[in-house]
């Protein structure tokens, strides 16, 4: 038995996050009675420490450790840093929302930290088992976070739906994994890729494995035709949780798709490309058309999220590293924009009532012009109106798809983008041109959230005006990774 | 002995038939003494508790009451088995079988002496643990199938209690495995050679106590017998059973008691090893005593503890049982796993090498 102690250094952020999350978990039981905000501050501090640890050991090389179950590369570092940054914002909004709506407890932060740990594990996974475990750590935390608001019937219903369908998706994914393992006899991504590259593998088994894996992935990402849970879950969950659900898990999902499709199964490009094309077209159509009929902003953003998943997958369909980079850019932009979109409901949601119907936004310009402007930024960015950052995200993805020769897909994407612009702009119209029933000025719940939302919203504009830095970051991250 | 028998049988029978007959004989050779031990254990229980309460105990049937178990068995066999009309008949009938089968099956790996064992398997400890864990189904199924409130309450109590104490029990055994570096019961005993101060009860004293307490709870014995709890829920899970069906539950309970005692003797008290090992003079003086006598003496002592506890302790309240299991025993065992790990890593103490 020749056992070499693995190199722990690359995994220090994960280890630190696990330790800090455990400390917060134990600490919460001790200090929650005396000081209400202690858990919140401890959580934010933990995130900052972890973020600093990643930045401090930022790598431009690929480091594989733990016998090939863990990988640290530029892509993972960039994604993790963004996860931490967005999570900081999420917890900031979430605390305000939970205080205002009078629910929640320290477990929200603990489970949130564990969910982020799961995302880190997914982002850094380099074999099938690790990827699965990361996914489950994240999903289990998310199911629980949704149900934490247990006096709310809709929240519990949303959690149950998410749980049942999530379990089904996990089953599909594992079934696919087992087929891939059965065909190749390997679980490490690089070895799977190597075995597939030899061409000695039974293609039928692999193809079926890919089908099940893609179904599982799309389920988890919330793309059509496996999107049924998305609107109900987003709608049912409390806004603070919807904010969590709608942003950073997408980053982890991107990493999951990247690791599986690009690093483990590049040899099966033709197989998964066809599947993703179907999924993408359906997602784009569902995301753009069904969202029109929604009168609840959370539901609308949920459907629009399905459309965004379609755009992210467009980058994968391109099948080139530039394409993956554009998908990465898109997912990061989407997560940041989501932070403003969902966050605005918290900023405006004073009192016990949720502020999530589109009618609630009626005449917002008259009631609070500054926040209406910020919301306009978010909606424009999601719709892809230049010069906001969302425009460049859509542009890059479509450009890569065209380069790869799928012009018809690009046409579909553009058409659906135009259709979806309709409902984003409807929110803007409601805010600026409709007459509110209640003309009293609305104040933000508190200063911190107001300025955080404003800061991020303005960043959407600024990074839209000078897009090259952010785009280059993504392209370089992907370029350094392969 | 059985190998020779099998060879002789296979000389004129099919191979598989020879194996089957040998296996059956082996099973009978183990189960019959166990069942007889169970019968007289009930007698011992009544006598011991009787004397502890300054009574005579049964003393009418046979000389000094020694034939009492036979009389009890005859009585129970004669009695009618009542099937409650509203019960779930199949499950009601199958429940006693579910209770007795694991209690008997677990004996397959118990070594009575060096090499005297039906199946000397590598994962013996695990086998005993998993087979013993199935025993709870007899209680749960009987409680549910009886369609009676009291039986149902007994079943619920039993299922929660057994699971809780199984964890402590498992962890206590983990420390033994760590020290012995094997799961084979014969090898665990061999590792304890060299005098009674080498037996694991000294280095693992807390685990010895925890294991025995968990054993009490696992077998639903006083002071943890809330599953029966005759003062609260009549007779718990077997309130609707009568005659032989009722007796089978008792057989299972007492067989489990003896099993737990055997396991404790093997794990912590050196199994069949002589307590005089390594003591000059006494060792040679008692060298002629077969190992089976030593292990029987140890088991008898442990069984006496079972009876003693029943006579001494008042019954725990249900929430207190749960508290003891989850908040005292399990943390203690987990801590001790780490203690043993550290002691082994730093090679502390004379027991670990």
């Amino acid at each position, binding site marked *: 038995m020749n056992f070499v102690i693995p190199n722990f250094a690359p995994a220090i952020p994960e280890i630190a996050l696990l330790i800090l999350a455990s400390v917060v978990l134990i600490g919460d039981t001790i200090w929650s009675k005396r000081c209400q905000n202690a858990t919140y501050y401890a959580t934010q501090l933990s995130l900052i420490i972890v973020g600093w640890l990643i930045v401090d050991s930022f790598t431009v090389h690929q480091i594989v450790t733990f016998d090939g179950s863990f990988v640290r590369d530029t892509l993972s570092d960039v994604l993790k840093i963004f996860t931490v940054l967005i999570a900081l914002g999420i917890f900031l909004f979430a605390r305000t929302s939970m205080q205002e709506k009078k629910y929640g407890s320290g477990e929200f932060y603990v489970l949130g930290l564990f969910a982020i740990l799961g995302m880190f594990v997914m982002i850094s996974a380099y074999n099938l088992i690790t990827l699965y475990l990361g996914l489950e750590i994240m999903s289990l935390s998310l199911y629980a976070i949704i149900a934490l608001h247990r006096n709310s019937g809709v929240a519990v219903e949303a959690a149950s739906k998410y749980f049942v369908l999530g379990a089904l998706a996990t089953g599909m994914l594992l079934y696919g994994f087992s087929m891939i393992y059965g065909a190749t006899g390997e679980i490490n991504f690089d070895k799977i890729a190597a075995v597939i590259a030899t061409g000695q593998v039974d293609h039928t088994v692999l193809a079926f494995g890919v089908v099940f894996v893609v179904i599982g992935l799309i389920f988890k990402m919330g793309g059509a035709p496996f999107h049924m849970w998305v609107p109900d879950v987003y709608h049912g969950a409390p806004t603070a949780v919807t904010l969590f659900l709608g942003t950073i898990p997408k980053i982890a999902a991107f990493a999951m798709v990247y690791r599986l499709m690009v690093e483990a199964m590049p040899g099966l490009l033709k197989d998964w490309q066809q599947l993703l094309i179907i999924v993408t077209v359906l997602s784009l159509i569902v995301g753009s058309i069904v969202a029109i009929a929604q009168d609840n902003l959370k539901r609308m953003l949920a459907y629009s999220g399905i459309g965004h998943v379609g755009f992210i997958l467009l980058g994968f369909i391109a099948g080139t590293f530039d394409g993956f980079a554009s998908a990465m850019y898109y997912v990061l932009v989407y997560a940041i924009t989501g932070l403003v979109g969902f966050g605005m409901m918290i900023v405006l949601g004073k009192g016990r009532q949720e502020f999530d119907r589109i009618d609630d936004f009626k005449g917002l310009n008259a009631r609070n012009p500054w926040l209406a402007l910020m919301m306009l930024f978010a909606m424009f960015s999601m719709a892809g109106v230049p010069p906001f950052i969302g425009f460049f995200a859509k542009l890059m993805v479509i450009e890569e798809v065209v380069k790869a020769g799928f012009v018809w897909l690009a046409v579909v994407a553009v058409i659906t983008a135009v259709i979806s612009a309709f409902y984003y702009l409807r929110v803007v119209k409601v805010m600026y041109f409709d007459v509110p029933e209640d003309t009293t000025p609305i104040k933000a719940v508190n200063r911190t959230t107001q300025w955080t939302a404003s800061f991020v919203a303005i960043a959407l504009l600024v990074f839209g005006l000078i897009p090259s830095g952010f785009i280059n970051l993504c392209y370089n991250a992907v370029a350094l990774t392969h | 002995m059985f190998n020779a028998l099998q060879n002789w049988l296979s000389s004129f029978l099919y191979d598989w038939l020879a194996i089957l007959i040998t296996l059956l004989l082996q099973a009978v050779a183990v189960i019959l003494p166990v069942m007889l031990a169970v019968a007289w254990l009930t007698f011992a229980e009544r006598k011991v508790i009787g004397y502890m309460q300054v009574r005579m105990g049964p003393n009418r049937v046979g000389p000094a009451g020694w034939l009492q178990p036979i009389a009890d068995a005859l009585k129970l066999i004669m009695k009618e088995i009542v099937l409650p009309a509203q019960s779930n008949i199949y499950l009601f009938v199958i429940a006693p079988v579910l209770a007795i089968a694991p209690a008997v099956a677990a004996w397959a790996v118990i070594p009575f002496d060096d090499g005297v064992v039906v199946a000397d398997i590598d994962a013996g400890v695990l086998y005993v643990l998993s087979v013993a864990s*199935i025993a709870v189904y007899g209680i749960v199924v009987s409680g549910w199938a009886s369609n009676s409130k009291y039986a149902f309450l007994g079943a619920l109590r039993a299922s929660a209690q057994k699971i809780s104490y199984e964890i402590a029990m498992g962890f206590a055994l983990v420390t033994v495995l760590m020290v012995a570096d094997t799961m084979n019961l014969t090898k665990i005993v061999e590792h304890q050679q060299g005098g009674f101060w080498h037996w694991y009860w000294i280095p693992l004293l807390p685990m010895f106590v925890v294991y025995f307490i968990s054993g009490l709870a696992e077998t639903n014995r006083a002071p943890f017998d809330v599953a029966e709890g005759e003062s609260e829920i009549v007779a718990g899970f077997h309130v609707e059973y009568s005659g032989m069906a009722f007796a089978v539950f008792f057989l299972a309970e007492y067989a489990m008691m003896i099993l737990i005692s055997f396991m404790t003797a093997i794990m912590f008290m050196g199994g069949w090893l002589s307590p005089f090992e390594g003591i000059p003079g006494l060792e040679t003086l008692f060298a002629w005593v077969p190992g089976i006598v030593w292990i029987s003496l140890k088991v008898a002592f442990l069984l006496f503890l079972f009876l003693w506890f029943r006579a001494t302790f008042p019954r725990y309240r249900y929430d207190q049982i749960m508290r003891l299991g989850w908040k005292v025993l399990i943390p203690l065992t987990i801590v001790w796993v780490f203690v043993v790990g550290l002691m082994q890593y730093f090679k502390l103490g004379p027991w670990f090498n």
Partner: protein
Amino acid sequence: MTFETFIFYLLGFIAAASGLMMITVKNPVKAALWLVLAFIATAGLWILAQAEFLGLVLILVYVGAVMVLFLFVVMMLDINLVVLKEGFTRYLPIGAVAALATFALIYMVVGPDRFGLQAFPAPTPLPADASNTKMIAVPLYTTHVYAFILAAVLLLVGIVAAISLTLRRRPPKEVQYQDIDAQVKVQAKDRFEMIKMAPVVEPEIKKEEKEE
């Protein structure tokens, strides 16, 4: 057919049949019990495949712990079977077709054609003294230690989630919690106080006596 093949088919049949019973039987408690049988048969199959450790652990963990808790819950539920069975016959044809199609696909893909003995020759039997436990333990703590720790984290998350979702602390006015530490630590002086009192003198009684 060797003895082992016979046992294999027997256990396989029991596992499949009890699995089928589990999903068709009406009573949830019975369904859980069928599932237990399926687990035991599967454990037997694993032991037959020389994975004794896994087989025994399957019984210990799933049969001995998980399913008992499951039964514990299911026994207490009052499930309305009529509502559950609603639409069963309506969706039966579609369900049957889907199940058959899935089975056909699975059989074609992972059936004997591709994963038969020609493609994957039977492994050589392990020597009699091979320790199954060590064979699992060594990779678990070396090669797969990262995944092993993550699995522990997953369980921790499960514990946190379960407790935070179900623990409802009721105010002390409603429920009297027993504080055993306080009970143990209690001293005589906390419970018991000696009070010195002056003797009560009742002079009036004497007066009455005199009057008489």
